[in-house]
């Protein structure tokens, strides 16, 4: 047993987190910032933060993750990080030549109380920011929220810094895709295009964190939302925010700053959430849903009706980020699966009630917590076993100990490939998810079947 010390008996904990189901804000901010074209994320803190975030993102995407750091030492921690940041800005623009430096703070610089806009103004005044180049920032204290919060904050910063209130509304909408894979952002763009909707998608890490092997390393690959597009976001017809936790703050900011109406939707994972997304796009753009999209929908539904017997009544445990879990749980329930243990590490009051609502029809006791950890999740499973678990790579330890199949989903996935390339959003993404779920369940069925019940046809 790898997790041999995890007891079945659950003891309440108030202070100790064991095997977290979240990580800290800055990494989310770094990920979001990589979704701006020609942007170098910058970690204002000790250099270890930057190293850790780059490492984790690199392991997840298996792609270069470029970011700089203020490399705090003890002195900076005592006297503040202003000179470090100004020096960093100078060096970065000189050596790495981005168009944007996206600064996020860390628990260290937040505790010190560094005022990034002030430092940035000083750098500007000192001529360290070349003309036409930008320094933006987000406050991302590690002791508040989670990586998703950090993503949300940096995404909001994009709106805050760049969106301009234009004279007239453009025939375009903004789509904030949320903390999803590059492949998902790409798929969201594709779907919008397929619908005939012009969209500003931000952030957009596609072609940044799923770029090709060409024998050439580009510090700034072709992906990412352009500054120009971000500017125009203030003149869009409306904003569709996908996921409350990751995307709503930016959408609200655009509304406040530029009076762009916003709609909050769930991440388009699964049938009904994608239906809602498509339906909003349709109404916003005043178009009919094209056959191609209906075809995709019908194919997803076809897998559901064809394979329903394998979904029905299967108990699942889910660990992940709140926006993903809401949509995923809804999808699973919609195909008669029973998600019964649901844990996110990201705190948030709405999450639990939303999950309760979604799982109301599940004929089984449902455990859900926001701000929980994988240790508790594991204990829940020991007390009430499940047929399948879904979540990030850390679940593999539970999967092995408890002999439960695992479908990798969410962040981080450190031991398989595919997530960067194949979306799980949209109808096609739903098909992929179902394929993964079926493969996991049927592989298990095949493994455990007594010989007389080993089936050729499933």
């Amino acid at each position: 047993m790898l997790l041999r010390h995890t007891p079945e008996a659950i003891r309440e904990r108030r202070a100790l987190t064991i095997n977290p189901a979240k990580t800290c804000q800055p990494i989310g901010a770094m990920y979001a910032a990589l979704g701006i074209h020609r942007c170098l994320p910058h970690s204002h803190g000790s250099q270890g933060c930057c190293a850790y975030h780059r490492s984790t993102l690199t392991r997840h995407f298996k792609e270069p993750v470029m970011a700089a750091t203020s490399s705090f030492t003890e002195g900076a921690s005592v006297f503040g990080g202003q000179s470090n940041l100004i020096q960093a800005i100078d060096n970065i623009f000189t050596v790495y030549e981005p168009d944007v430096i996206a600064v996020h703070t860390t628990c260290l610089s937040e505790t010190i109380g560094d005022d990034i806009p002030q430092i940035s103004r000083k750098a500007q005044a000192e001529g360290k920011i070349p003309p036409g180049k930008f320094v933006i920032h987000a406050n991302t204290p590690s002791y508040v929220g989670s990586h998703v919060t950090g993503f949300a904050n940096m995404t909001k910063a994009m709106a805050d810094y760049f969106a301009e209130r234009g004279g007239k509304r453009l025939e375009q909408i903004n789509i904030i895709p949320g903390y999803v894979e590059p492949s998902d952002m790409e798929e969201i763009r594709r779907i919008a295009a397929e619908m005939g909707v012009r969209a500003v998608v931000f952030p957009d890490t596609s072609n940044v964190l799923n770029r090709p092997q060409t024998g050439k390393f580009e510090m700034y690959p072709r992906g990412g939302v352009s500054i120009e597009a971000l500017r125009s976001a203030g003149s869009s017809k409306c904003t569709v925010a996908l996921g409350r936790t990751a995307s709503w703050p930016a959408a609200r900011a655009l509304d406040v700053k530029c009076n762009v109406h916003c709609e909050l939707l769930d991440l388009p994972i699964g049938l009904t959430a994608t239906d809602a997304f498509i339906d909003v796009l349709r109404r916003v753009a005043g178009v009919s849903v094209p056959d191609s999209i209906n075809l995709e929908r019908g194919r997803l539904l076809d897998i559901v009706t064809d394979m329903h017997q394998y979904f029905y009544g299967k108990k699942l445990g889910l660990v992940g980020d709140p926006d993903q879990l809401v949509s995923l749980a809804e999808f699973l329930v919609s195909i008669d699966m029973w998600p019964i243990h649901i844990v996110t590490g990201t705190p948030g009051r709405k999450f639990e009630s939303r999950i309760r609502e979604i799982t109301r029809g599940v004929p089984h006791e449902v455990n859900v917590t926001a701000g929980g950890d994988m240790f508790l999740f594991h204990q829940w499973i020991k007390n009430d076993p499940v047929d399948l678990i879904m979540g990030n790579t850390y679940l593999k330890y539970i999967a092995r100990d408890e002999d439960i199949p695992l479908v990798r989903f969410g962040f981080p996935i450190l031991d398989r490939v595919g997530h960067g390339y194949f979306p799980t959003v949209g109808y096609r993404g739903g098909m992929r998810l179902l394929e993964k779920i079926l493969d996991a369940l049927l592989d298990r069925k095949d493994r455990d079947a007594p010989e007389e019940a080993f089936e050729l046809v499933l």
Partner: protein
Amino acid sequence: MSAIHEGKAAPAAEAIDPAAVKQELIAKYPTKVARKRGKQIIVNRVGEDCSVPEIGANTRTIPGIITQRGCSYAGCKGVVLGPTRDLVNLTHGPIGCGFYSWLTRRNQTRPATPEEANFMPYCFSTDLQDEDIVFGGEKKLRAAILEAYDIFHPKAISIFATCPVGLIGDDIHTVAKEMKERLGINVFAFSCEGYKGVSQSAGHHIANNGIFKHVVGLDDTSREGKYRINLLGEYNIGGDAFEIERVLEKCGITLVATFSGNSTYEQFASSHMADLNTVMCHRSINYVAEMMERKFGIPWIKTNFIGAGSAAKSLRKIAKYFEDRELSDRVEEIIAEEMVEVEKVQAEVRARCEGKLAMLFVGGSRAHHYQDLFAEIGMRTISAGYEFAHRDDYEGRRVLPDIKVDADSRSIEELEVHPDPDRYRPRKTAEQIAELKRDGLSFNDYEGMMVRMADGTLVIDDISQYETERMIETYKPAIFCAGIKEKYAVQKKGIPMKQLHSYDSGGPYAGFKGAVNFYREIDRMVNSRIWSYLKAPWQTNPELAATYACE
């Protein structure tokens, strides 16, 4: 002539002027930065007296320069304490640090029984929140320790401070002391806030101090064995320690403790009962070796099990230390036995790798040690450097007296250690030591990396992303070695990249079997056909047959 060629075939390495390369590497930097980097980028030249040029090392990374380095917490919790399976390692701080250092280093561990404690798959954190930062986190820390004790009943709990902890004034050492008394188990803390020092290195030092102060010497139980040694600075990445253990055992040498691959708390506690300390990663652990000698009288020698030749040499050193014919014979026998397979594969692989270039920028000793393995298959290290080493790791310990203590180093406590009144027991007399030295065995010494590198090679400390790219473009090495952050940027340039921190989930590479693994791995990487597909046919052959045949 420009030494840096973007996108063209590299000239033979010999035709490249390393001084010109250095100039071009720093040309792009602002003046002050260029000046500083100029001290850290050195064209190697080994004098007749084995002297080497001075290199700038263990100095601050310049903000904004993309670095490989991590922080003090990473060095303390991640590197040194992390691999000990029966410690509950509790990170005190916001969740991130604990999360990132959770299972990511591939330190393998193998409990003797399924019941034996192993907390390595667990991440423990106080997950500090806003209000804790405002009102202080000591209360939460105390509660967390109690909860950990109630659930796990570990032998010991260690606490690691993250950046904000010092700033908000949490006195983790007092908390540790209190809890130690209350629970009756060992509880100790490390003030390894990320901003301490200039790299992981500060964290190693803090870890060394803490483990020495709080654990080493607590248990006088002595393991059976004629030749009892400790292995210091070996972290069992990919099973390296298992292979070393295998070889030592075969030779009849008893391993008392490893710091800290595949280790336990008890091993540390009784490590002072060994008769020799052998130091693998000089950078991360030499403090412990030094302190144990001073306090307990255990001499230390530098060893290196990376590379079959180095492994053999290290075994012979150990045998020589014990001055025992039986051991020497046994060691020679084992070496001969192990080298059969090694030499077979070496020859096979060498035929395909001879003359190819390698670059190594990693760690605090790996960039040195792995050159031996490359050399064994005929590959040349054209450039190398450390991520977090000090001058002594480059130039040898003889420069120690010359190293200036700056503000960043000063902030790390330097323990005052005196001989233990009861336990100090010099393993060798001064005469014996002198005799052994005359016989070629050097004690308390490390000659550094540079003296082993060829003239004209470039030694680069704390290499930056920018320099990495330029170096690759200039030399087009057959392989580049560094860490995960560098991996894919290198590979996107069409150059296979071997991680020497995590081994890319390969290994072991230590010892004899490890050498064979490494030869094969490098063979796979530098000779694979996959690197030939980078250009599509239409990129190689872009002309269009306007009058296509089927017209």
